C-alpha cells in the first residue's frame, strides 16, 4: 500500500514538473507550428538566471524565502521573455512560411548557439542554489517524506495550467490566437496582426520554459547541458498528449509521470524505456497524440 501511495505522489510531482517544462513547447507549436528545439536552452537560461540570482541573494544579502521565490519568478520571466523576443524578431521572423522541418533545424541551431552562449556567461562549473529547497522543509507521509518545495512545484504547475487555459479561452488575445490556430490566412484577412501575435506567443512560450528552469534550479545542479537533457522528455510528453494541446500536455505529463513512477518503484532498470513505450503505444492507436487533431492539408 505504501508503494502505491508513493507511486501516486511521485507520479503527480514528476508530472507537474513535466507539464511546466512542456507547456511552453506546446503553446508555441499550437499557435506558430514551430517545434522549438531551443526550448531546452530557454529552460537552461531560466535555471542559470535563477541560480545566479539566488547565489547572489543568499551570499550575505538576505535569507527570506518569499524574496528568493519572487526572485526566481522575476528572473525567469525576464530572461525568458527577453530571449524569446530576440529569437523571434532576430531569427524566426525571417523564416516564417518555410517548411516545418526547416524551422526545426533553425531552432536546433539556436539551441547549439545558446548552449555556447551560456558557457561563455556562466562557465562550466555547476551552480547550486538549494536554499529555497531546504528552507521549505518536508512533510511525512508514513515512512515517506515529501519536500515542501516539490509540493510547491505542483501548485505552480496548476496555476500555470489554469492561467494558460484562462488566457486562451477567456481573453480577447486568446480568442485571436485560437482564430490563428484555426486558420492563419483567414485571420490575417480579417485584420489580425499575426506577426505581433506570434511575437507575443513566442515570448510567453519562452518565459514558460524559463520558469520551468527557474523553478527546477533549487533542486538540481545547474550545469551545461541541462536543457538538452529535458528537451527529449518534453517532446515525449507533448507528442503523447498531442502537439499544440495544453490539455494534451497535462494529460500526457500525468501518464508519463505515473508510468515512470511505477517503473522506478517496481522495475527501476526500465525507467527510460517505459517513457518511450508509453509514447509509442499512444501513437500506434492515435498518430496525432491523445488530444492532437488531424489537419487537412491546404493546396
Amino acid at each position, binding site marked *: 500500500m505504501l508503494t502505491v501511495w508513493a507511486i501516486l505522489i511521485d507520479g503527480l510531482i514528476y508530472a507537474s514538473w513535466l507539464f511546466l517544462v512542456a507547456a511552453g513547447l506546446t503553446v508555441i507549436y499550437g499557435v506558430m507550428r514551430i517545434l522549438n528545439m531551443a526550448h531546452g536552452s530557454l529552460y537552461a537560461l531560466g535555471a542559470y538566471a535563477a541560480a545566479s540570482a539566488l547565489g547572489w541573494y543568499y551570499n550575505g544579502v538576505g535569507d527570506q524565502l518569499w524574496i528568493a521565490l519572487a526572485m526566481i519568478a522575476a528572473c525567469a520571466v525576464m530572461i525568458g521573455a527577453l530571449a524569446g523576443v530576440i529569437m523571434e524578431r532576430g531569427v524566426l521572423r525571417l523564416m516564417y512560411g518555410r517548411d516545418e522541418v526547416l524551422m526545426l533545424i533553425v531552432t536546433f541551431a539556436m539551441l547549439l548557439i545558446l548552449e555556447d552562449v551560456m558557457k561563455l556567461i556562466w562557465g562550466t*562549473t555547476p551552480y547550486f542554489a538549494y536554499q529555497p529547497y531546504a528552507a521549505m522543509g518536508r512533510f511525512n507521509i508514513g*515512512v515517506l517524506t515529501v519536500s515542501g518545495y516539490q509540493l510547491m512545484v505542483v501548485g505552480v504547475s496548476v496555476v500555470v495550467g489554469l492561467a494558460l487555459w484562462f488566457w486562451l479561452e477567456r481573453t480577447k488575445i486568446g480568442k485571436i490566437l485560437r482564430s490563428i490556430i484555426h486558420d492563419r490566412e483567414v485571420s490575417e484577412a480579417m485584420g489580425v496582426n499575426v506577426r505581433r501575435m506570434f511575437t507575443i506567443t513566442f515570448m510567453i512560450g519562452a518565459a514558460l520554459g524559463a520558469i520551468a528552469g527557474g523553478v527546477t534550479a533549487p533542486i538540481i545542479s545547474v550545469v551545461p547541458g541541462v536543457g538538452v537533457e529535458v528537451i527529449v522528455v518534453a517532446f515525449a510528453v507533448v507528442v503523447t498528449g498531442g502537439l499544440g494541446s495544453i490539455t494534451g500536455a497535462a494529460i500526457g505529463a500525468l501518464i508519463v509521470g505515473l508510468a515512470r513512477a511505477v517503473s522506478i518503484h517496481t522495475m527501476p532498470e526500465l525507467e527510460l524505456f517505459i517513457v518511450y513505450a508509453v509514447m509509442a503505444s499512444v501513437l500506434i492507436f492515435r498518430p496525432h497524440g491523445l488530444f492532437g487533431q488531424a489537419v487537412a492539408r491546404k493546396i
Partner: protein
Amino acid sequence: MGHPLSRAGMRRTLLSTATSIALISAGVMGISQAAHAEDTFKVGLVTFLSGGASGPFGVPAAQAAETVIKAINAGELPAPYDSAGVNGLQLESVVIDEAGGPTKQVEEYRNLVQRQNVNAVIGYISSGDCLAVGPVAEEMQTFTIAFDCGTPRLFEDVSNPTYLFRTGLDAVADNVGAAHYLNDAKSDISRLAGIQQNYAWGQDSWQDFTLSMEQLMPDVEIVDNQTPQIFQGNYGTEISALQTRRPDIIHSSMWGGDMEAFVAQANVRGLLEQATAILTTGESGLHRFENQAPNGTILGGRGPFGGFMPENDLSEWFSKAYEAEHGTPPSYPASKMAQALLGLKYAADNSGAEGVPSSEQLAAALKGATFESVSGTVKMALAGGHQAMQPMLYGEYHYSADTGPELRNVRAYKGECVSPPDGQNALEWIKAGFPGADCD
C-alpha cells in the same frame, strides 16, 4: 643617375628577392622550430572542458596541470622533482576538450600525435574514452597515461600494453574498499540499497560492490538499486523508492553534479537520516557540501587523493600551490592529474635519453617503476607494470561552520587488499573470496 632597369628585368629582380626572403625565412623558421622542438617536450592533455563532467572533474584537472607544469618548468617542485623541466626540456601542453564521445576522442588523439606532434598524451576521465583510445595509443606507439578513468576493462582490452599506462586505481578497488570499510565500521547493518547512473560505470560499480559485500557481509540483504539516467538531476522518485525499502546503507558511484544533487535532495527528504550514504567519488564534493550532506556520510576519493592525500612534501606543496592559484583545495581529480604529470616527469628524467625521450624510452622507464607522488609512493605493479597499485581510503564527512569540512574515522586498505593480483580477472577474484589479498 644609373641605367634604368627594364620592366621585365625589374620583375625578375623583385621575384628573385622575394624568393630569397621566403627561402631565408623558411630556413630561419625551420631552424627556429627545430631548436624549439629540441628544447621542449610536448604533451597532449585531454580533459573535460565542457559538459556535466567539466566542473567537478575536467576543469580541476586542467587547473592542476597548469599549476604542476608551471612548477616543473621553473624547477620549483620539491625533491625528487626539483630539476627544471622533464629530462631538462621545457614542458609544453596542448589542451583538448574530452567532450564529444569516444569516436571524436580517437580522432582528437590521432590529431594530437600526427598533426600536433606531441611526445606523450595524458588524459581521459570517461571510461568510454579510455577504452576507445587505449588500443589507438598502442597502434600509434605513443606514450599515453590514463590519469582518471576507472574501468577495469582498460587492460583487459589492451592485454599486453607497451605504451599505455594508468597512474591511478580502477573501479574494482573503489568498491572492494567500500565493502571492507562497511565490514569494519558498520558491522551492524542489515539492509543495503544503491543508486547508480545507468551506464557502464554505474553498473560495473554496483556489480563489484554487491559481489564484494556477498563475500564480506553475506547476511546483508540487498533491497534495491536505482538506476537514473546520467545528468538526470532530479531524483525525487528514486528517493521515494529508496525510502520505502528502508535501507541502512545506500551505496552510490554517482559522480559530479549528479552526486551532489542527489545528496542535497536526499538530505532534505530525510533519506540520509534513515540511511548512511557511502559515496565512492564523494570526495569531489568535500569542499562544496557544507550543510547539504549530513555528518557521518562516508566518502571515497578513488585512492589517496584530494582530501585523502597523505602528508608529504609533494602533497603539501601541491595543496598550497593549487589553492593559491585556484582559490580552493585540490579535489581528487586534480590530485590524479598531478600524479600523472609526476609520473611523466619520473619517466622522462629516468629515460636515459639525450634530448627528447622516445615513447619506447618513456615506457621502459615507467613500466614497473616506483615513484613518489602527491599520494605517497606509487608502485606500477598491476597490468604488467602499467597500472598503479595504491591504497584505497574511506572516511566520514563532518562539517561545522567553525572547522569547515573534515574527514574523520579514515581507514586505509592496502593496494594488495583491494586489487586482484596482477593478471587475475577482477570478478573471478572477488567471487573466489579475494584469494591472495593482503589486508593486514
